[in-house]
């Protein structure tokens, strides 16, 4: 039997629809839909392998309403052979846990599980634009019991295994993943091909196979709103405090610079004084999500059933804990204090000598050290085995992870294993309570995991009543607590039992840029460049502007977009964006950056934003305070000259 390649795909409202409404807002009633952007990269990977294995069968699989057929047809037109849709009203309201379960049930029924004799590969996109969790691929793999690699940007098919390049904090790792497996593809991989006319004609004549939940044999009580371990308790609009962009006009670069300077003068108090959002921004934000004490007198029920303690995972980059792992100790500490319990941090790695005391100094009460040569480099399966066993053993009420590429795949896979709910990429974590009107009960103390959603236009509060209540926290959102070497804590060792299959994936190579870039978290002005800024002058002007500002006594630094980093113009440590750093300087200057959603995620909380781009259509202008449509090579020299003459964008100098 030949190779089968399955691609998971979701249909989402078109992002451009957000700008197409008559009032400038997204009109969901008329919103056109399309294949989720990341999924198109997954689809392409399947087609790439088919070039090598021409008799491989390509199957596109989706779950959703029958309107998804439109996108399934497009996948067929691109070259997929079969389209399968799981469509059932019972699935409405499913969270990622339930979705992973339902999709895995369908796939098993289609003949794909770890017991299958025939080789198969499952591709998916990294995450969806409407959910942004990146959970479903991991949770599907867990339910199928097969190895996975997420955030992958390069795939080589080698017969019985794949060689993949996976993005990690600070660089990438090259993994050897045995078939069968699930691979989620990052949007830096090869973009999807266009459908061919021949394919479109074939697609029109190919029927989509529609499955109901019953046909998959899945347990209906584990899906849908009632079966999902998480629920959205509240959604509030994020107040868009950024007014529409002020496009700077002027014919010559000199005029543009002059006019920018005078516009900046008008708002200089706002730049200099306000928006210094470094400290505990995550906590401040929650004010918007504050909820009045419940006004009902249902009986209060502690749903934890004895589960106690806050667990965090410390991700090691070689011998040092990752920044986001230390950040996560901040909310963990606060939650534990409020709940009058302990923070336990699990460290996985090898040769972990002095790490434990450092972690205690940053806020942990107890450090569990799992030291094993096989844990030297992060791999999801053994780490998941460690933490799952600890959770089953100790039953913590809360488990928190940094939302790095590792944390974001580990947490959902774990959640599916220990049957818990997980919330992705949170910007605020609080203790609250929830009045369950149907059950006439007030549940407490619930973890309120608050995260931006719907294209970052809303703030959703997600809760669940299954322990541990799990969440990943967006990097750069929480401030690392001051190091206190006098803090006392306990250090324990823990020896989990591994199965051979936990080590099925081999790490062939790891490349990590040596540290650096941490100043981006505290800089007042960040000038970031996109790929064109590298193509044209290798970031020379950008660095010059940063230097000129530093010479004026301003804490300025420079960053880069994902594309610029990929092309080697800047080290990963300087990457701003969802898979890079989340920064909040007082002023962010985006130079030749188009404004892809993944970049915006990393900088849109900046105080003021200036965008310089030749392309007037660039999305960055919709998220900027000031826009200049011009070649940066003409504008930056003018700005550099002005900075040298003393202009500091309204910021006080330390000179």
């Amino acid at each position: 039997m030949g190779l089968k390649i399955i691609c998971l795909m979701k249909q989402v409202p078109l992002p451009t629809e957000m700008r197409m409404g008559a009032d400038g807002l997204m009109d969901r009633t008329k919103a056109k839909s399309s294949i989720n952007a990341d999924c198109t990269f997954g689809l392409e990977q399947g087609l790439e392998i088919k070039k090598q294995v021409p008799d491989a069968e390509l199957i596109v699989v989706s779950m959703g309403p029958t309107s998804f057929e439109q996108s399934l047809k497009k996948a067929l037109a691109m070259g997929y052979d079969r389209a399968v849709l799981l469509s059932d009203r019972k699935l409405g309201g499913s969270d990622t846990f339930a979705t992973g379960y339902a999709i895995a049930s369908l796939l098993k029924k289609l003949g794909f599980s770890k017991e299958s004799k025939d080789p198969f590969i499952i591709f998916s996109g990294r995450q969806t634009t409407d959910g942004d969790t990146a959970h479903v691929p991991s949770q599907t793999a867990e339910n199928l019991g097969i190895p996975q690699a997420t955030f992958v940007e390069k795939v080589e098919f080698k017969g019985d295994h794949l060689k993949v390049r996976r993005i990690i904090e600070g660089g990438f790792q090259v993994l050897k993943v045995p078939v069968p497996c699930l691979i989620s593809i990052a949007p830096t991989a090869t973009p999807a091909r266009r459908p061919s006319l021949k394919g479109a004609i074939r697609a029109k004549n190919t029927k989509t196979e529609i499955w109901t939940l019953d046909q998959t044999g899945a347990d209906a009580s584990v899906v849908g709103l009632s079966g999902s371990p998480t629920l959205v308790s509240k959604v509030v609009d994020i107040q868009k405090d950024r007014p529409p962009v002020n496009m700077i006009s002027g014919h010559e670069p000199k005029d543009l610079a002059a006019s920018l300077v005078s516009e900046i003068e008008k708002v200089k108090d706002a730049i200099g004084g306000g928006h210094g959002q470094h400290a505990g921004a995550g906590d401040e934000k929650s004010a918007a999500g504050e909820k009045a004490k419940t006004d009902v007198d249902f009986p209060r029920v502690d749903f934890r059933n004895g589960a106690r303690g806050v667990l965090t995972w410390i991700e090691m980059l070689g011998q040092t804990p990752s920044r986001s792992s230390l950040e996560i100790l901040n909310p963990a500490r606060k939650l534990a204090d409020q709940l009058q319990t302990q923070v336990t941090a699990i460290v996985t790695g090898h040769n972990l000598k002095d790490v434990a005391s450092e972690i205690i100094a940053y806020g942990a009460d107890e450090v569990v050290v799992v030291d094993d040569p096989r844990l030297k480099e992060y791999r999801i399966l053994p780490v998941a085995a460690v933490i799952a066993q600890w959770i089953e053993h100790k039953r913590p009420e809360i488990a928190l992870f940094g939302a790095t590429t590792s944390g974001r795949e580990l947490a959902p896979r774990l959640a599916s294993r220990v049957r818990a709910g997980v919330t992705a990429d949170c910007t605020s974590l609080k203790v609250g309570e929830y009045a369950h009107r149907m059950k006439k009960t007030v549940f407490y103390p619930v973890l309120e995991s608050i995260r931006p959603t719907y294209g970052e236009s809303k703030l959703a509060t997600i809760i669940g009543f299954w322990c541990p209540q799990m969440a990943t926290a967006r990097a750069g959102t929480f401030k690392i607590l001051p190091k206190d070497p006098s803090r006392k804590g306990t250090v324990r060792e823990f020896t989990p039992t591994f199965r051979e299959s936990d080590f099925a994936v081999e790490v062939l190579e790891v490349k990590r840029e040596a540290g650096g870039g941490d100043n981006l978290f505290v800089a007042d002005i960040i000038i970031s460049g996109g790929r064109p800024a590298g193509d044209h002058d290798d970031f020379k002007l950008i660095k010059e502007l940063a230097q000129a500002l530093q010479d004026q006594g301003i804490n300025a630094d420079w960053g880069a977009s994902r594309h610029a980093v990929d092309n080697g113009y800047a080290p990963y440590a300087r990457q701003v964006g969802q898979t890079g750093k989340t920064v909040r300087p007082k002023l962010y200057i985006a130079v030749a950056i188009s404004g892809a959603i993944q970049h915006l995620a990393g900088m849109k909380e900046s105080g003021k934003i200036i965008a310089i781009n030749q392309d007037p259509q660039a999305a960055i202008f919709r998220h900027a305070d000031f826009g200049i449509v011009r070649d940066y090579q003409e504008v930056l020299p003018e700005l550099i000259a002005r900075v040298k003459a003393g202009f500091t964008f309204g910021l006080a100098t330390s000179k």
Partner: protein
Amino acid sequence: MPKSEIIETDILIVGGGVAGLATAIHLADLAAGSDKKPGILVLEKGSSIGSHTLSGAVIDSSTLKELLPGVDPKDFPFESPVKKEGVYFFTPKLALKAPFTPPFMGNHGNYVVSLGKMTRWLAEIAEKKGVQVYPGFSVSEMLYQNDRVIGAKTIDTGVDKHGKPMENFQAGNEIHAKITILAEGPRGSLMKALCGKLKLDRQSNPQVYSTGVKELWDLPEGTFEAGRIMHTLGFPFSFNHFGGGFVYGLNGRQVVVGIAAGLDYTDPTFDSHAALQVYKKHPFIAKILEKGKLLRYGAKTIPEGGLYSLPKLYHDGVMIVGDSAGFLSMPSLKGVHLAIESGMLAAKSAFEALKKNDFSGTQLSLYETLFQKSATHKTLSRTRNFRAGFGHGMILGAFYFATQILTGGRGITPSGKMKTHEDAACYKKLADVKKTFCEKFAKELVFDKQLTFDKVTDVYFSGSKHDEEQPCHLRVLDFNLCRETCIPKYGGPCQHFCPAEVYEIVTDLKTGKKDLHLHPANCVHCKTCDIKDPFGNIEWAVPYGGDGPEYENL
């Protein structure tokens, strides 16, 4: 490189606009009774049917009734019958209403429509009749066997800027058809290639064009009622420039405001987008738009040459319909009804050819014969010299037009056939223009983003997008010609004539030298550049299917 797969069909129609869909619908109807139904394939480059459709539009519904005899005209997706019409002459400050409607410009009994909406409706009808309609596919080349057209090929995708196939390369498909029908709209790229190869326009006047630029606005209830139409002459056009403005009331509080500017102008700095902005500032128009809001923007060329500019309409294996051929009635500036009629005539010819299994030019010439006998031919004949006369300016044009009316269209030219000139050949040197458009309106060209908008903002409202990874679809044949000759002599007219800011003349800060920069992603597919570049140095080619503007109801 993988080989292109072949698709076989009886009839291939390139272009899912009114002409192409009318051809498909009528042919499907004619063949409905026969035992072997022909395969009819319609390909459209827009992401959906109607997304590249742009017209005024006030239409004459007569031929639509003929095309769809089974449909109650009450069900036509029209906005409104024309209820109130006026022709105005604009001075910079005043609007003088013409006491009567000039000849051929009356719109009594006509309808205000959104052509985008109408094409979507026609596509649904066509599909119900078994026509295969595929939007999102660009056709990039004609296929020949000797001089006989045997089909066409869709564009290769997954090609980088330099034309090299990338990992996601997808070869285009060859489509082999018994008859290929070109319905690409004005200045189609296939039509241009076909004409160049087979010299179908050997005996015709050069086609002359206007560029129509329009905006769709949302106004407070009761500002401008549906079915009210206004045509204006004069400001902002100079006396030697053929052009005019229009305001049409649609349903649902929407109005369109636009101008159509003849491309035989001489001033290299004329800018149709800027002219529309200036036009909106005229007190009469500004008042209408006062409390409104811009919804959409778009631009498209209009073939105006009339009867004498029509090429030979057929050749072995191919026919040409609608705007591709230049079916347009002046001075009323109406082409939709003729697009439908030309499509129906081509369908009749195709049907006969299928019956006889003969697809030679001799057999397909039936299309031209039917056209010669048609009432349309008579109408076009009466205004056959109209546009050529106006090539001499508005005043002399009006004089010629008067003589043409009196002589049944012939006019006072000895041969009875007035000549038109290639639009591209009409420029004066920049130095020879006394007061350029830009100088004249320098003070006006400040955009407040309420009533008036800079080009880039308007382009944003066209919804246009293009894949960055593809060869530039605006092929500048010789950049040196731009630098060495065009910019010094004409000041780079492309930066002005393009209503979408595709062309930018940049000055090198160090050397002071000027150069041309392209922003192909802005293109709204109007084709003005292909027509009006003074040296014919720009060739408009199709980009990937699905790229381009996203017009909604334009």
